[in-house]
Protein backbone atom coordinates (compact mmCIF):
# COMPACT_ATOMS: atom_id res chain seq x y z
CA UNK A 1 0.00 0.00 0.00
CA UNK A 2 1.34 3.42 -1.00
CA UNK A 3 0.62 6.50 1.09
CA UNK A 4 1.78 10.08 0.47
CA UNK A 5 2.65 13.19 2.40
CA UNK A 6 2.73 16.61 0.82
CA UNK A 7 4.15 19.73 2.46
CA UNK A 8 3.40 23.00 0.69
CA UNK A 9 5.65 25.58 2.32
CA UNK A 10 5.96 29.27 1.60
CA UNK A 11 9.14 28.80 -0.43
CA UNK A 12 9.22 25.13 -1.46
CA UNK A 13 6.78 22.25 -1.94
CA UNK A 14 7.76 18.71 -0.95
CA UNK A 15 6.19 15.27 -1.42
CA UNK A 16 7.07 11.81 -0.13
CA UNK A 17 5.69 8.40 -1.04
CA UNK A 18 5.80 5.59 1.52
CA UNK A 19 5.32 1.89 0.84
CA UNK A 20 5.09 0.03 4.15
CA UNK A 21 7.50 2.32 5.99
CA UNK A 22 9.94 2.56 3.08
CA UNK A 23 10.41 5.91 1.39
CA UNK A 24 10.01 4.90 -2.25
CA UNK A 25 10.38 8.39 -3.66
CA UNK A 26 10.34 12.08 -2.84
CA UNK A 27 10.42 15.45 -4.60
CA UNK A 28 11.13 19.09 -3.78
CA UNK A 29 10.16 22.02 -6.00
CA UNK A 30 10.04 25.79 -5.67
CA UNK A 31 6.49 26.89 -4.78
CA UNK A 32 4.42 28.56 -7.45
CA UNK A 33 2.08 31.38 -6.55
CA UNK A 34 -0.76 28.86 -6.76
CA UNK A 35 -0.35 26.10 -4.17
CA UNK A 36 -2.65 23.70 -6.02
CA UNK A 37 -0.31 23.83 -9.00
CA UNK A 38 2.74 23.32 -6.78
CA UNK A 39 1.06 20.34 -5.12
CA UNK A 40 0.06 18.74 -8.38
CA UNK A 41 3.56 19.13 -9.82
CA UNK A 42 5.48 17.94 -6.77
CA UNK A 43 3.22 14.91 -6.27
CA UNK A 44 3.42 14.01 -9.97
CA UNK A 45 7.23 14.23 -9.84
CA UNK A 46 7.33 11.93 -6.83
CA UNK A 47 4.91 9.48 -8.47
CA UNK A 48 6.95 9.47 -11.67
CA UNK A 49 10.12 8.67 -9.77
CA UNK A 50 8.35 5.78 -8.06
CA UNK A 51 6.79 4.72 -11.33
CA UNK A 52 3.31 4.78 -9.86
CA UNK A 53 0.07 6.63 -10.46
CA UNK A 54 -2.15 8.91 -8.39
CA UNK A 55 -4.72 6.11 -8.04
CA UNK A 56 -2.10 4.00 -6.23
CA UNK A 57 -2.06 6.43 -3.32
CA UNK A 58 -4.22 4.93 -0.57
CA UNK A 59 -4.13 8.10 1.50
CA UNK A 60 -2.69 11.59 1.01
CA UNK A 61 -2.06 13.91 3.97
CA UNK A 62 -1.14 17.55 3.47
CA UNK A 63 0.66 20.05 5.67
CA UNK A 64 2.33 23.45 5.42
CA UNK A 65 0.94 26.84 4.45
CA UNK A 66 -0.83 25.52 1.38
CA UNK A 67 -2.19 22.33 2.93
CA UNK A 68 -5.83 23.19 2.31
CA UNK A 69 -5.31 23.72 -1.42
CA UNK A 70 -3.77 20.31 -2.22
CA UNK A 71 -6.01 18.54 -4.76
CA UNK A 72 -7.33 15.12 -3.67
CA UNK A 73 -5.92 15.54 -0.16
CA UNK A 74 -7.54 13.14 2.31
CA UNK A 75 -6.77 15.13 5.46
CA UNK A 76 -4.50 17.91 6.67
CA UNK A 77 -2.16 18.07 9.68
CA UNK A 78 -0.36 21.02 11.29
CA UNK A 79 3.33 21.45 10.47
CA UNK A 80 4.19 21.09 14.15
CA UNK A 81 2.75 17.58 14.35
CA UNK A 82 4.25 16.53 11.04
CA UNK A 83 7.80 17.70 11.77
CA UNK A 84 7.64 16.07 15.19
CA UNK A 85 6.31 12.81 13.78
CA UNK A 86 8.78 12.72 10.91
CA UNK A 87 11.80 13.44 13.08
CA UNK A 88 10.74 10.99 15.78
CA UNK A 89 10.20 8.28 13.18
CA UNK A 90 13.77 8.65 11.87
CA UNK A 91 15.29 9.07 15.33
CA UNK A 92 13.24 7.75 18.27
CA UNK A 93 15.72 9.32 20.70
CA UNK A 94 14.81 12.82 19.48
CA UNK A 95 13.45 15.10 22.21
CA UNK A 96 13.63 18.43 20.45
CA UNK A 97 12.98 19.44 16.85
CA UNK A 98 14.00 22.84 15.55
CA UNK A 99 12.35 23.63 12.25
CA UNK A 100 13.40 26.73 10.37
CA UNK A 101 10.92 27.26 7.58
CA UNK A 102 10.47 30.01 5.04
CA UNK A 103 8.17 32.18 7.14
CA UNK A 104 8.87 31.16 10.70
CA UNK A 105 11.08 29.16 13.02
CA UNK A 106 9.57 26.67 15.44
CA UNK A 107 10.97 24.69 18.35
CA UNK A 108 9.15 21.58 19.58
CA UNK A 109 9.82 19.45 22.61
CA UNK A 110 8.97 15.82 21.97
CA UNK A 111 7.89 13.18 24.47
CA UNK A 112 9.28 9.68 24.37
CA UNK A 113 6.27 8.41 22.42
CA UNK A 114 6.69 11.17 19.84
CA UNK A 115 3.87 13.41 21.05
CA UNK A 116 4.54 17.17 21.14
CA UNK A 117 5.01 18.27 24.75
CA UNK A 118 5.43 21.96 24.02
CA UNK A 119 6.24 24.18 21.04
CA UNK A 120 6.91 27.84 20.36
CA UNK A 121 7.15 30.04 17.27
CA UNK A 122 9.63 32.85 16.75
CA UNK A 123 8.55 36.31 17.89
CA UNK A 124 7.10 38.77 15.46
CA UNK A 125 9.86 40.49 13.47
CA UNK A 126 12.49 38.05 14.73
CA UNK A 127 14.78 37.46 11.82
CA UNK A 128 15.22 33.72 12.15
CA UNK A 129 13.55 32.46 8.99
CA UNK A 130 14.42 31.01 5.60
CA UNK A 131 13.06 34.09 3.91
CA UNK A 132 15.54 36.12 5.98
CA UNK A 133 18.47 34.18 4.51
CA UNK A 134 16.99 34.49 1.00
CA UNK A 135 16.74 38.26 1.22
CA UNK A 136 20.28 38.44 2.58
CA UNK A 137 21.57 36.21 -0.22
CA UNK A 138 19.89 38.55 -2.71
CA UNK A 139 21.39 41.59 -1.03
CA UNK A 140 24.85 40.04 -1.19
CA UNK A 141 24.26 38.68 -4.68
CA UNK A 142 25.34 35.13 -3.81
CA UNK A 143 23.48 31.83 -4.32
CA UNK A 144 21.54 30.68 -1.25
CA UNK A 145 23.12 27.25 -1.40
CA UNK A 146 26.66 28.62 -1.08
CA UNK A 147 26.00 30.76 1.99
CA UNK A 148 27.24 28.17 4.46
CA UNK A 149 30.44 27.44 2.56
CA UNK A 150 31.27 31.11 2.06
CA UNK A 151 30.65 31.90 5.75
CA UNK A 152 33.29 29.33 6.69
CA UNK A 153 35.99 31.61 5.28
CA UNK A 154 35.10 34.39 7.75
CA UNK A 155 38.06 36.09 9.42
CA UNK A 156 36.63 39.22 11.06
CA UNK A 157 33.89 39.11 13.73
CA UNK A 158 31.05 41.45 12.76
CA UNK A 159 27.76 42.09 14.60
CA UNK A 160 24.29 42.34 13.07
CA UNK A 161 21.53 43.16 15.50
CA UNK A 162 18.43 44.33 13.65
CA UNK A 163 15.43 42.07 14.11
CA UNK A 164 13.52 43.43 11.14
CA UNK A 165 14.44 41.51 7.99
CA UNK A 166 14.34 44.62 5.87
CA UNK A 167 16.37 46.68 8.34
CA UNK A 168 18.85 43.83 8.70
CA UNK A 169 19.15 44.09 4.94
CA UNK A 170 19.99 47.78 5.32
CA UNK A 171 22.58 46.81 7.92
CA UNK A 172 24.08 44.31 5.51
CA UNK A 173 24.16 46.87 2.73
CA UNK A 174 25.91 49.40 4.96
CA UNK A 175 28.44 46.74 6.00
CA UNK A 176 29.06 46.05 2.32
CA UNK A 177 29.41 49.78 1.74
CA UNK A 178 31.91 49.87 4.58
CA UNK A 179 33.98 47.41 2.55
CA UNK A 180 33.41 44.41 4.81
CA UNK A 181 34.01 40.90 3.44
CA UNK A 182 30.96 38.89 2.32
CA UNK A 183 32.18 35.89 4.33
CA UNK A 184 32.36 37.92 7.53
CA UNK A 185 28.92 39.43 6.97
CA UNK A 186 27.43 36.00 6.31
CA UNK A 187 29.09 34.61 9.38
CA UNK A 188 27.59 37.44 11.46
CA UNK A 189 24.17 36.78 9.91
CA UNK A 190 24.37 33.10 10.77
CA UNK A 191 25.41 33.79 14.33
CA UNK A 192 22.64 36.38 14.78
CA UNK A 193 20.06 33.96 13.42
CA UNK A 194 21.39 30.99 15.40
CA UNK A 195 21.29 33.01 18.64
CA UNK A 196 17.63 33.92 18.12
CA UNK A 197 16.64 30.36 17.28
CA UNK A 198 18.62 29.06 20.26
CA UNK A 199 16.72 31.46 22.52
CA UNK A 200 13.49 30.16 21.03
CA UNK A 201 14.50 26.59 21.85
CA UNK A 202 15.53 27.52 25.39
CA UNK A 203 12.19 29.20 26.00
CA UNK A 204 10.53 25.76 26.10
CA UNK A 205 13.52 23.97 27.62
CA UNK A 206 16.16 22.26 25.51
CA UNK A 207 16.17 18.45 25.66
CA UNK A 208 18.51 16.07 23.82
CA UNK A 209 18.63 14.67 21.22
CA UNK A 210 18.15 17.81 19.16
CA UNK A 211 17.61 17.71 15.40
CA UNK A 212 17.07 20.42 12.81
CA UNK A 213 14.46 20.16 10.08
CA UNK A 214 13.44 22.40 7.20
CA UNK A 215 15.42 23.67 4.24
CA UNK A 216 17.61 25.99 6.30
CA UNK A 217 19.03 22.97 8.14
CA UNK A 218 21.03 22.28 4.97
CA UNK A 219 22.89 25.54 5.53
CA UNK A 220 26.07 24.32 7.27
CA UNK A 221 26.68 27.81 8.60
CA UNK A 222 23.43 27.90 10.56
CA UNK A 223 23.75 24.26 11.53
CA UNK A 224 27.13 24.73 13.22
CA UNK A 225 26.28 28.20 14.61
CA UNK A 226 23.13 26.81 16.23
CA UNK A 227 25.06 23.90 17.71
CA UNK A 228 27.51 26.41 19.19
CA UNK A 229 24.72 28.67 20.47
CA UNK A 230 23.00 25.75 22.24
CA UNK A 231 26.39 24.32 23.02
CA UNK A 232 25.50 20.75 22.15
CA UNK A 233 25.79 18.46 19.15
CA UNK A 234 22.82 18.74 16.84
CA UNK A 235 22.21 15.21 15.56
CA UNK A 236 22.08 14.77 11.82
CA UNK A 237 19.03 12.85 10.60
CA UNK A 238 21.33 10.05 9.47
CA UNK A 239 21.41 10.96 5.83
CA UNK A 240 17.79 12.01 5.46
CA UNK A 241 16.98 15.34 3.82
CA UNK A 242 15.85 17.71 6.62
CA UNK A 243 13.73 19.59 4.12
CA UNK A 244 11.52 16.51 3.66
CA UNK A 245 10.72 15.83 7.32
CA UNK A 246 7.41 17.69 7.24
CA UNK A 247 6.27 15.71 4.22
CA UNK A 248 7.51 12.49 5.82
CA UNK A 249 5.49 13.24 8.96
CA UNK A 250 2.44 13.84 6.80
CA UNK A 251 3.02 10.56 4.99
CA UNK A 252 3.27 8.74 8.33
CA UNK A 253 -0.06 10.29 9.36
CA UNK A 254 -1.44 9.08 6.06
CA UNK A 255 -0.29 5.55 6.83
CA UNK A 256 -1.88 5.58 10.29
CA UNK A 257 -5.03 6.95 8.78
CA UNK A 258 -5.05 4.30 6.08
CA UNK A 259 -4.42 1.55 8.66
CA UNK A 260 -7.39 2.68 10.72
CA UNK A 261 -9.34 2.57 7.49
Amino acid sequence: MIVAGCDIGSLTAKAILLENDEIISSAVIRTKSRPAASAREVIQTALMRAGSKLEDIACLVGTGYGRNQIPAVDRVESEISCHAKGAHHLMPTVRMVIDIGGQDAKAMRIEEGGAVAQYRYNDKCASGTGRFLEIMAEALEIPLAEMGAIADQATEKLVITSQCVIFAETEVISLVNAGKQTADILNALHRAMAKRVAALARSIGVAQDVVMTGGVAKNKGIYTALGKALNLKIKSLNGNDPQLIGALGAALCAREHADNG
Partner: protein
Amino acid sequence: MQAFLNAANQIENHAIKAWKQRGKMIVGYTCSHMPPEILHAAGILPVRLRGIQTEGMEIGDAYFGPFICSFPKCLLQQAGMGQYAFLDGVVIIPGCDAMRRLDECWRKAGNDHENILPGWFDYLDVPHKSEGHGLRWYQRELRNFLTRIEQYFGVTVTDDALHESIDTYNRGRQLLQSLLEFRKLDNTVVSGHDVFAASVAASVLPREEFNRQIEKWLTELAIKKPLAGNTKRLMVVGSISDEIDLFHLIESESQALVVAENLCFGVRQAGGQIATNGDPITALASHYLTTSVCPRMFGKYKERLALLKETIARYQVQGVILQNIRFCDLHGSENGLFERDLEAIGIPCLRIEREYGPLTETGRIKLRIDAFLENID
Protein backbone atom coordinates in the same frame (compact mmCIF):
# COMPACT_ATOMS: atom_id res chain seq x y z
CA MET B 1 38.48 63.72 30.39
CA GLN B 2 40.08 60.38 29.55
CA ALA B 3 38.77 58.99 32.83
CA PHE B 4 35.24 60.01 31.80
CA LEU B 5 35.51 58.45 28.34
CA ASN B 6 36.88 55.29 29.88
CA ALA B 7 33.99 55.18 32.37
CA ALA B 8 31.37 56.02 29.77
CA ASN B 9 32.62 53.47 27.23
CA GLN B 10 32.54 50.30 29.30
CA ILE B 11 30.34 48.74 31.94
CA GLU B 12 33.07 47.51 34.25
CA ASN B 13 35.31 50.58 34.24
CA HIS B 14 38.70 51.05 35.95
CA ALA B 15 37.16 52.54 39.10
CA ILE B 16 34.77 49.62 39.54
CA LYS B 17 37.67 47.14 39.17
CA ALA B 18 39.72 49.09 41.71
CA TRP B 19 36.77 49.30 44.11
CA LYS B 20 36.25 45.54 43.89
CA GLN B 21 39.93 44.87 44.51
CA ARG B 22 39.59 46.72 47.79
CA GLY B 23 36.86 44.19 48.57
CA LYS B 24 34.13 46.82 48.84
CA MET B 25 30.47 46.49 47.93
CA ILE B 26 28.78 47.63 44.70
CA VAL B 27 25.03 48.02 44.12
CA GLY B 28 23.46 48.71 40.73
CA TYR B 29 20.26 50.70 40.19
CA THR B 30 18.03 51.49 37.24
CA CYS B 31 16.41 54.90 37.56
CA SER B 32 17.11 58.55 38.36
CA HIS B 33 14.47 58.45 41.12
CA MET B 34 16.96 56.58 43.29
CA PRO B 35 19.14 58.63 45.70
CA PRO B 36 22.66 57.18 45.37
CA GLU B 37 23.58 59.14 48.51
CA ILE B 38 21.94 56.43 50.63
CA LEU B 39 24.19 53.70 49.23
CA HIS B 40 27.19 56.01 49.33
CA ALA B 41 26.59 56.67 53.02
CA ALA B 42 26.58 52.91 53.60
CA GLY B 43 30.06 52.68 52.04
CA ILE B 44 28.60 51.05 48.94
CA LEU B 45 29.43 52.16 45.39
CA PRO B 46 26.18 53.04 43.59
CA VAL B 47 26.41 52.20 39.90
CA ARG B 48 23.80 53.13 37.36
CA LEU B 49 22.99 50.03 35.22
CA ARG B 50 23.71 50.32 31.49
CA GLY B 51 23.15 48.22 28.40
CA ILE B 52 25.99 49.32 26.16
CA GLN B 53 28.11 46.98 24.02
CA THR B 54 25.47 44.27 23.53
CA GLU B 55 26.17 41.94 20.62
CA GLY B 56 22.82 40.23 20.54
CA MET B 57 19.50 40.08 22.27
CA GLU B 58 18.93 36.36 22.70
CA ILE B 59 18.84 36.50 26.50
CA GLY B 60 16.83 39.72 26.62
CA ASP B 61 14.32 38.33 24.14
CA ALA B 62 13.99 35.03 25.98
CA TYR B 63 12.26 36.80 28.91
CA PHE B 64 10.91 40.10 27.63
CA GLY B 65 8.19 40.10 24.99
CA PRO B 66 8.78 41.39 21.46
CA PHE B 67 7.00 44.69 22.11
CA ILE B 68 9.41 45.86 24.79
CA CYS B 69 11.94 48.66 24.46
CA SER B 70 15.51 47.47 23.88
CA PHE B 71 17.01 49.22 26.93
CA PRO B 72 15.88 46.75 29.63
CA LYS B 73 16.52 43.93 27.15
CA CYS B 74 20.11 45.09 26.79
CA LEU B 75 20.49 45.34 30.58
CA LEU B 76 19.25 41.77 30.93
CA GLN B 77 21.40 40.65 28.02
CA GLN B 78 24.51 42.07 29.68
CA ALA B 79 23.54 40.65 33.05
CA GLY B 80 23.01 37.27 31.39
CA MET B 81 26.43 37.50 29.74
CA GLY B 82 27.96 37.98 33.18
CA GLN B 83 28.85 41.62 32.59
CA TYR B 84 27.35 42.51 35.97
CA ALA B 85 29.12 39.80 37.94
CA PHE B 86 30.75 42.60 39.98
CA LEU B 87 27.42 43.59 41.57
CA ASP B 88 26.71 42.66 45.18
CA GLY B 89 23.20 43.96 44.88
CA VAL B 90 20.73 45.56 42.51
CA VAL B 91 17.77 47.87 43.03
CA ILE B 92 14.88 47.70 40.55
CA ILE B 93 12.69 50.79 40.30
CA PRO B 94 9.31 50.79 38.50
CA GLY B 95 10.38 53.68 36.27
CA CYS B 96 8.18 52.42 33.46
CA ASP B 97 6.48 49.09 32.71
CA ALA B 98 9.41 47.77 30.72
CA MET B 99 11.93 48.65 33.43
CA ARG B 100 9.83 47.33 36.33
CA ARG B 101 9.53 43.94 34.61
CA LEU B 102 13.32 43.71 34.67
CA ASP B 103 12.58 42.54 38.22
CA GLU B 104 10.84 39.30 37.20
CA CYS B 105 12.85 38.78 34.02
CA TRP B 106 16.22 39.07 35.77
CA ARG B 107 15.14 36.84 38.66
CA LYS B 108 13.80 34.18 36.26
CA ALA B 109 16.93 34.42 34.12
CA GLY B 110 18.80 33.78 37.37
CA ASN B 111 17.23 30.31 37.48
CA ASP B 112 18.40 29.51 33.95
CA HIS B 113 21.86 31.09 33.92
CA GLU B 114 24.40 30.56 36.69
CA ASN B 115 25.48 33.37 39.04
CA ILE B 116 23.98 36.28 37.13
CA LEU B 117 21.76 37.22 40.07
CA PRO B 118 23.37 39.50 42.68
CA GLY B 119 23.06 38.33 46.28
CA TRP B 120 20.85 41.28 47.16
CA PHE B 121 17.89 41.93 44.83
CA ASP B 122 15.80 44.87 45.94
CA TYR B 123 12.71 46.74 44.73
CA LEU B 124 12.13 50.44 45.44
CA ASP B 125 8.52 51.41 44.83
CA VAL B 126 8.59 54.99 43.53
CA PRO B 127 5.09 56.48 43.24
CA HIS B 128 3.88 58.43 40.20
CA LYS B 129 2.86 61.34 42.38
CA SER B 130 5.09 63.83 44.10
CA GLU B 131 2.42 65.58 46.19
CA GLY B 132 1.35 64.92 49.79
CA HIS B 133 0.71 61.20 50.21
CA GLY B 134 2.93 60.42 47.19
CA LEU B 135 5.87 62.11 48.84
CA ARG B 136 5.04 60.49 52.19
CA TRP B 137 4.98 57.07 50.52
CA TYR B 138 8.35 57.70 48.91
CA GLN B 139 9.90 58.87 52.19
CA ARG B 140 8.71 55.67 53.87
CA GLU B 141 10.09 53.66 50.93
CA LEU B 142 13.50 55.29 51.39
CA ARG B 143 13.51 54.66 55.14
CA ASN B 144 12.62 51.00 54.64
CA PHE B 145 15.20 50.83 51.86
CA LEU B 146 17.87 52.14 54.23
CA THR B 147 16.86 49.57 56.86
CA ARG B 148 17.11 46.74 54.32
CA ILE B 149 20.60 47.94 53.34
CA GLU B 150 21.68 48.09 56.98
CA GLN B 151 20.34 44.60 57.60
CA TYR B 152 21.75 42.91 54.49
CA PHE B 153 25.16 44.58 54.43
CA GLY B 154 25.49 44.70 58.22
CA VAL B 155 26.19 48.42 58.40
CA THR B 156 24.70 51.31 60.33
CA VAL B 157 24.09 54.56 58.50
CA THR B 158 23.96 57.66 60.69
CA ASP B 159 22.31 60.94 59.70
CA ASP B 160 25.78 62.49 59.79
CA ALA B 161 27.01 59.95 57.26
CA LEU B 162 24.02 60.75 55.06
CA HIS B 163 24.67 64.48 55.40
CA GLU B 164 28.28 63.91 54.38
CA SER B 165 27.24 61.91 51.31
CA ILE B 166 24.69 64.55 50.34
CA ASP B 167 27.46 67.12 50.66
CA THR B 168 29.77 65.09 48.39
CA TYR B 169 27.01 64.67 45.81
CA ASN B 170 26.04 68.35 46.07
CA ARG B 171 29.63 69.17 45.21
CA GLY B 172 29.39 66.99 42.11
CA ARG B 173 26.09 68.57 41.08
CA GLN B 174 27.68 71.99 41.52
CA LEU B 175 30.71 71.08 39.40
CA LEU B 176 28.49 69.65 36.65
CA GLN B 177 26.59 72.92 36.73
CA SER B 178 29.78 74.94 36.23
CA LEU B 179 30.63 72.59 33.32
CA LEU B 180 27.30 73.54 31.75
CA GLU B 181 28.23 77.21 31.98
CA PHE B 182 30.80 76.56 29.23
CA ARG B 183 27.97 75.42 26.96
CA LYS B 184 26.33 78.81 27.13
CA LEU B 185 29.27 80.49 25.39
CA ASP B 186 28.65 81.63 21.82
CA ASN B 187 31.67 79.74 20.57
CA THR B 188 31.94 77.08 23.20
CA VAL B 189 35.04 75.14 24.16
CA VAL B 190 33.40 71.82 24.92
CA SER B 191 31.56 69.30 22.74
CA GLY B 192 28.24 67.75 23.72
CA HIS B 193 29.91 64.38 23.38
CA ASP B 194 32.42 65.19 26.11
CA VAL B 195 29.89 66.77 28.46
CA PHE B 196 27.61 63.78 28.05
CA ALA B 197 30.49 61.39 28.70
CA ALA B 198 31.15 63.29 31.92
CA SER B 199 27.55 63.14 33.06
CA VAL B 200 27.31 59.42 32.24
CA ALA B 201 30.53 58.93 34.18
CA ALA B 202 28.95 60.80 37.09
CA SER B 203 26.47 57.94 37.47
CA VAL B 204 29.04 55.14 37.54
CA LEU B 205 32.19 56.58 39.15
CA PRO B 206 32.82 56.89 42.88
CA ARG B 207 31.65 60.42 43.60
CA GLU B 208 34.93 61.51 45.11
CA GLU B 209 36.86 60.48 42.02
CA PHE B 210 34.28 62.09 39.76
CA ASN B 211 34.58 65.36 41.66
CA ARG B 212 38.38 65.26 41.44
CA GLN B 213 38.36 64.51 37.71
CA ILE B 214 35.82 67.16 36.79
CA GLU B 215 37.62 69.81 38.83
CA LYS B 216 40.78 68.99 36.89
CA TRP B 217 38.91 69.12 33.61
CA LEU B 218 37.22 72.43 34.40
CA THR B 219 40.59 74.09 34.90
CA GLU B 220 41.71 72.71 31.52
CA LEU B 221 38.57 73.99 29.84
CA ALA B 222 39.04 77.47 31.30
CA ILE B 223 42.07 77.97 29.04
CA LYS B 224 40.85 75.90 26.07
CA LYS B 225 40.37 77.48 22.63
CA PRO B 226 36.85 77.52 21.14
CA LEU B 227 35.86 74.53 18.98
CA ALA B 228 36.28 74.99 15.24
CA GLY B 229 33.52 74.83 12.67
CA ASN B 230 30.38 76.79 11.94
CA THR B 231 28.07 74.65 13.98
CA LYS B 232 24.38 74.60 14.83
CA ARG B 233 23.36 74.41 18.47
CA LEU B 234 21.18 71.40 19.21
CA MET B 235 19.38 69.94 22.20
CA VAL B 236 18.69 66.20 22.62
CA VAL B 237 15.70 65.03 24.64
CA GLY B 238 13.59 61.90 25.01
CA SER B 239 14.16 58.25 25.90
CA ILE B 240 16.91 57.08 28.19
CA SER B 241 20.37 57.13 26.64
CA ASP B 242 23.88 56.57 27.87
CA GLU B 243 25.26 56.14 24.33
CA ILE B 244 27.96 58.72 23.83
CA ASP B 245 28.34 57.35 20.27
CA LEU B 246 24.94 58.85 19.55
CA PHE B 247 26.32 62.27 20.44
CA HIS B 248 29.37 61.54 18.33
CA LEU B 249 27.09 60.69 15.41
CA ILE B 250 25.18 63.97 15.81
CA GLU B 251 28.31 66.07 16.10
CA SER B 252 30.45 64.28 13.51
CA GLU B 253 31.60 66.39 10.55
CA SER B 254 31.40 69.27 13.05
CA GLN B 255 28.15 70.60 11.61
CA ALA B 256 26.31 70.46 14.90
CA LEU B 257 27.03 70.85 18.56
CA VAL B 258 24.86 69.48 21.34
CA VAL B 259 24.66 72.31 23.88
CA ALA B 260 21.89 70.86 26.03
CA GLU B 261 20.08 67.63 26.69
CA ASN B 262 17.39 66.22 28.91
CA LEU B 263 18.02 62.51 29.16
CA CYS B 264 17.76 60.09 32.05
CA PHE B 265 21.52 59.82 32.01
CA GLY B 266 23.00 63.22 31.47
CA VAL B 267 22.94 66.58 33.11
CA ARG B 268 19.74 65.99 35.07
CA GLN B 269 22.19 65.35 37.91
CA ALA B 270 23.47 68.90 37.60
CA GLY B 271 22.54 71.91 39.68
CA GLY B 272 20.04 71.24 42.47
CA GLN B 273 21.49 71.35 45.97
CA ILE B 274 20.10 69.21 48.80
CA ALA B 275 19.97 70.49 52.39
CA THR B 276 22.74 69.07 54.60
CA ASN B 277 20.92 69.80 57.81
CA GLY B 278 17.62 68.49 59.15
CA ASP B 279 16.32 65.01 58.32
CA PRO B 280 18.40 63.73 55.40
CA ILE B 281 15.79 61.25 54.12
CA THR B 282 13.13 63.95 53.95
CA ALA B 283 15.52 66.17 52.04
CA LEU B 284 16.56 63.38 49.64
CA ALA B 285 12.95 62.36 49.09
CA SER B 286 11.79 65.81 48.05
CA HIS B 287 14.77 66.25 45.73
CA TYR B 288 14.63 62.89 43.97
CA LEU B 289 10.84 62.73 43.65
CA THR B 290 9.91 66.30 42.80
CA THR B 291 12.70 67.41 40.47
CA SER B 292 11.70 64.75 37.99
CA VAL B 293 11.45 65.56 34.32
CA CYS B 294 10.39 62.09 33.21
CA PRO B 295 6.99 61.50 31.58
CA ARG B 296 6.49 58.59 33.96
CA MET B 297 5.26 61.35 36.29
CA PHE B 298 1.94 61.57 34.44
CA GLY B 299 0.07 64.85 34.07
CA LYS B 300 3.11 67.10 34.39
CA TYR B 301 3.56 67.85 30.70
CA LYS B 302 3.30 71.62 31.12
CA GLU B 303 6.08 71.69 33.72
CA ARG B 304 8.32 69.69 31.40
CA LEU B 305 7.53 71.90 28.41
CA ALA B 306 8.31 75.00 30.47
CA LEU B 307 11.65 73.54 31.51
CA LEU B 308 12.41 72.67 27.90
CA LYS B 309 11.65 76.21 26.68
CA GLU B 310 13.75 77.66 29.49
CA THR B 311 16.73 75.48 28.57
CA ILE B 312 16.34 76.32 24.88
CA ALA B 313 16.51 80.01 25.68
CA ARG B 314 19.35 79.73 28.16
CA TYR B 315 21.60 77.72 25.84
CA GLN B 316 20.52 79.40 22.58
CA VAL B 317 19.34 76.11 21.13
CA GLN B 318 18.60 76.28 17.39
CA GLY B 319 17.03 72.87 16.98
CA VAL B 320 15.75 70.06 19.17
CA ILE B 321 16.21 66.35 18.47
CA LEU B 322 13.27 64.47 20.00
CA GLN B 323 14.35 60.84 20.09
CA ASN B 324 12.62 57.81 21.49
CA ILE B 325 13.50 54.16 21.65
CA ARG B 326 10.93 52.05 19.80
CA PHE B 327 8.16 50.99 22.23
CA CYS B 328 8.98 53.85 24.59
CA ASP B 329 5.57 55.47 24.27
CA LEU B 330 5.97 57.73 27.29
CA HIS B 331 8.75 59.69 25.65
CA GLY B 332 7.63 59.00 22.08
CA SER B 333 4.18 60.49 22.55
CA GLU B 334 5.40 63.37 24.69
CA ASN B 335 7.86 64.11 21.87
CA GLY B 336 4.81 64.49 19.63
CA LEU B 337 3.44 67.16 21.97
CA PHE B 338 6.84 68.87 22.26
CA GLU B 339 7.08 68.97 18.48
CA ARG B 340 3.65 70.61 18.23
CA ASP B 341 4.35 73.19 20.91
CA LEU B 342 7.95 74.00 19.97
CA GLU B 343 7.35 74.29 16.22
CA ALA B 344 4.52 76.67 17.15
CA ILE B 345 7.08 79.06 18.63
CA GLY B 346 9.45 78.59 15.71
CA ILE B 347 11.89 76.04 17.13
CA PRO B 348 12.73 73.35 14.54
CA CYS B 349 12.29 69.81 15.86
CA LEU B 350 13.40 66.41 14.57
CA ARG B 351 11.62 63.31 15.83
CA ILE B 352 13.53 60.04 15.64
CA GLU B 353 12.36 56.59 16.68
CA ARG B 354 15.31 54.26 17.13
CA GLU B 355 16.65 51.17 18.83
CA TYR B 356 18.85 51.34 21.90
CA GLY B 357 22.18 49.55 21.74
CA PRO B 358 24.82 49.15 19.04
CA LEU B 359 24.25 52.05 16.67
CA THR B 360 23.41 49.91 13.68
CA GLU B 361 20.94 52.38 12.24
CA THR B 362 23.67 54.96 11.80
CA GLY B 363 22.79 55.41 8.13
CA ARG B 364 19.10 56.06 8.75
CA ILE B 365 19.67 58.34 11.74
CA LYS B 366 22.49 60.29 10.07
CA LEU B 367 20.29 60.88 7.02
CA ARG B 368 17.62 62.53 9.17
CA ILE B 369 20.10 64.58 11.17
CA ASP B 370 21.88 65.84 8.04
CA ALA B 371 18.60 66.88 6.46
CA PHE B 372 17.55 68.54 9.71
CA LEU B 373 20.81 70.50 9.93
CA GLU B 374 20.72 71.48 6.26
CA ASN B 375 17.40 73.17 6.91
CA ILE B 376 18.15 75.02 10.15
CA ASP B 377 19.17 78.57 9.32
